[in-house]
């Protein structure tokens, strides 16, 4: 069996620190009442946080390229559903 790579304890702690910092950033920005911009930044930061968890904690970093393709298919499917629904909602 091919040994799967695992990161060092320290690098996992660093990823966690980044997640904590991003959480405080998103809470701070939400408190600044930026209007339409605030929801955009909140989703953007959530995307970064989610990617960090998937890439490092879920070890996508060291997985075969097939895992990325599968994830892409799932996310594209979700995006297509979202976009098409909004086409329907917006031009009704």
């Amino acid at each position: 069996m091919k040994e799967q790579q695992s990161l060092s304890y320290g690098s996992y702690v660093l990823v966690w620190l980044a997640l904590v910092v991003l959480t405080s950033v998103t809470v701070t920005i939400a408190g600044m009442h930026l209007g339409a911009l605030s929801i955009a930044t909140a989703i953007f930061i959530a995307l970064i946080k989610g990617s960090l968890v998937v890439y490092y904690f879920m070890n996508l970093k060291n997985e075969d390229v097939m895992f990325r393709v599968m994830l892409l298919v799932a996310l594209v499917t979700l995006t297509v559903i979202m976009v098409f629904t909004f086409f329907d909602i917006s031009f009704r």
Partner: protein
Amino acid sequence: MSVQAASPATHHKDHTGARIGMWLFLFTEILLFGGLFLLYSVYRSTFPEDFHYAATHLDTLVGTANTLILLTSSLTVVLAIAALRRNNRKLCTIMLSVTILAGLLFMVNKYFEWHHKFDIGLYPNSKELLRRAPGENLFYGLYFAMTGIHALHVIIGLGVLSVMLWIVAHKPKKTITVGPLQSDRLSLVEDQRGAVWTHEGEGEIAEAVVTLVYKSNEEINDDTWSKLENSGLYWHLVDVIWIFLFPLLYLIT
């Protein structure tokens, strides 16, 4: 004529295949929550003010605390997996215990949060919500559905991780039976440290059956590691979903 000795049946385990299966399952979970996020987005775009106002009743502090708790539990579960990779059973046990405690703490916070909502009359189909603007009712319907299904996933994750904790922490008893002895010298090499257990006996032990029971400390096998990794993947997904739930529900005021 030579007879090939049958090698002990080795069950082929495909750990990559197991992970693919887990990821595929997680995609169905993403689509499940994706549907709820879609509903949320559509209703939010239809009733932006109502959603905005309804969210002011949510406690951002509790939401932030729960976010940090889940993020930390994700770290500890990944450390548990890394520890098991390095055959550090003790650290793995500690980290898994911390993860489970964090999950329980999350649920305790959730309990008080929901309890408070119920106290002020905010629960699905309550008179208070029906009295309010339709968008607020929709917001709370989505709030309870999304955080409820998420909490259910936390509970399932806790169950899975508890089983893994038991598997990792539990040292199976191993029994070795030897005898009757052929010689007056008994040698056992089954010890985990490679130490040789010997007994130099006189005549009488030659007829004895000796049973030795000891707590096995053998290295964690790949199978356990594979199971723990897949449990970890599930736990991380629960975390990722919360990462998106938190800003959409708590931070839109």
